[in-house]
């Protein structure tokens, strides 16, 4: 990682313009370092944020080249740290070839960013938004590694509808390799763990995934809507130790699990009027979790999950160097029981552990071009998004974060 950092810093310091252009290869990137502090008992979205943490950064560099008009190729390397995951390990964020045949038809093949909702494709780059954290109901940090990109192929294009506006579409098919040491894997472990048998995911096999995305730029100036969908299935194995609550005797546990028929739908609306940007999105998830424990002491289960969430946001740029933004979101583990009775009924937790509701305010400063400074505060009710939950976690908690980003 040190070598990547050195390269990035050298690139930036030796680059007077917005980006390097070496033999027609465009080179861009960003370096983002933050500090985060949350209520001591609630470590999220950085796993050690309760004590205050600098393990909160993102670094990226991308290379692209137009080989001939219409044909492009490129890749991005990304490293991030969120405490117990990321750890600044360099990963291939995206890499694909792109042939744009005409306005309404283009093809891509490789590892391609997933166009989910208004902002998923660009969620990594802090400089491209007002907020430090996009609303976690939809842009959930702990599943970024499973919804960031698809390895496969896509068709896309832009269709001029005349008076009704313009539609931009993308269809993608492929697979979503999910790292076994990543945050998503931790979430899967949490789903199938029990109090007596905490498990760790040991293998993940993803099936064929399908993504569709429509963006309609309406005839109303500044108004666009999006409708996206992700359809996926994956399965894996896990291992751990079962501790008998009465005798404290321990036995090994191996488990097979499956997240099946995962269907995610997202509806987005964004309105821009001069320096004001208003946005709202709704997300709906349906999937079935199955776990089979190769240990008679733990009961197998099949559970149908039906969660949803929504947010509204507003940002306003007062000057070239100052922008203010805020949002409010809610997410529910079970959209048919928003009161949290799901957990209460089966006796696995409190009602507030099945939702998360956040009020967020952000100050963004652009003192000079290519440098962004941010300060953000969250007031939070509930802990549904916290995968590293403990008995001590608090229902009402806060999050304070600051971040500096240099982009080139």
């Amino acid at each position: 990682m040190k070598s990547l950092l050195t390269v990035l810093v050298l690139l930036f310091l030796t680059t007077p313009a917005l980006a390097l252009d070496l033999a027609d290869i465009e080179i861009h990137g960003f370096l983002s370092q933050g500090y985060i502090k949350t209520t001591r008992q609630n470590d999220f979205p950085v796993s050690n944020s309760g004590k205050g943490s600098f393990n909160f950064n993102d670094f990226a560099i991308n290379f692209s080249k137009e080989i001939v008009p219409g044909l492009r190729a490129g890749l991005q390397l990304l490293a991030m740290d969120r405490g117990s995951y990321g750890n600044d390990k360099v990963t291939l964020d995206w890499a694909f070839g792109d042939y744009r045949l005409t306005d309404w038809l283009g093809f891509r093949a490789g590892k391609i960013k997933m166009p989910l909702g208004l902002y998923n494709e660009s969620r990594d780059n802090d400089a491209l938004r007002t907020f430090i954290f996009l609303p976690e109901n939809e842009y959930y940090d702990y599943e970024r590694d499973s919804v960031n990109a698809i390895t496969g192929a896509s068709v896309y294009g832009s269709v001029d509808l005349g008076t009704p506006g313009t539609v931009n579409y993308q269809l993608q098919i492929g697979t979503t390799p999910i790292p076994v040491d990543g945050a998503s894997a931790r979430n899967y472990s949490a789903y199938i763990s029990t109090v007596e048998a905490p498990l760790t995911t040991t293998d993940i096999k993803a099936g064929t995934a399908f993504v569709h995305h429509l963006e309609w730029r309406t005839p109303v100036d500044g108004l666009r809507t999006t409708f996206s969908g992700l359809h996926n299935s994956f399965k894996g194995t896990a291992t751990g130790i079962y501790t008998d609550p009465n005798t404290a005797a321990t036995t090994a546990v191996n488990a097979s699990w499956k997240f099946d028929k995962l269907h995610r739908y997202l509806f987005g609306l964004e309105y821009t009027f001069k320096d004001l940007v208003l946005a709202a999105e709704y997300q709906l998830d349906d999937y079935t979790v199955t776990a089979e424990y190769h240990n008679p002491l733990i009961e197998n289960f099949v559970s149908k999950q039906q969660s949803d969430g929504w947010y509204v946001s507003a940002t306003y740029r007062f000057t070239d160097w100052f922008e203010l933004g805020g949002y409010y979101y809610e997410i529910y583990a079970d959209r048919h029981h928003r009161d949290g009775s799901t957990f209460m009924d089966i006796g696995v937790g409190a009602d507030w552990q099945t939702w998360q509701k956040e009020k967020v305010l952000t100050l963004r400063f652009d003192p000079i071009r290519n440098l962004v400074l941010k300060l953000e505060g969250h007031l939070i009710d509930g802990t549904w998004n916290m995968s590293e939950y403990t008995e001590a976690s608090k229902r009402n908690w806060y999050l304070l974060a600051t971040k500096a980003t240099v982009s080139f």
Partner: protein
Amino acid sequence: MLRTSRRSLPTIMLVLSLFPLLVPAAALASGFVVIANSNVAESSLSKKELQAIYLGEKVKWESKRYIKISVLEDGTVYKNFLQTVLGKTPSQFDQHWVRMVTTGRASMPQSFGESKQVVDFVAGHPNAIGFVAAGQETAAVKTITLK
């Protein structure tokens, strides 16, 4: 009091309807003119087409040649063009293209600080388009009117 006879009304309406075609409309009040390389067949574009070009959605001319975009990053003209054509501020436009480039979907448009540089670029690159301060266009490029 302005009076209009029934006979002259159609004539006035005709003149008014043709007005946008007769004037390089981009220059209307906003202080910019859209220019293109002389090999470009189009001599006029709708606001929607221009918007699609500068958002990276429309990538080809009618001739099927790929469009090459250039941008004049001069304060007032830049702001007026972006607001009039795209309804975006400079920071929103900048973020749109950084988003496109950093997700591998496009190359950054060529940008220049002076109108003369844009004119030279457009004149020297087939299929190029740009915008300059009104009055800065030369015979080396063709002027595109807004429909």
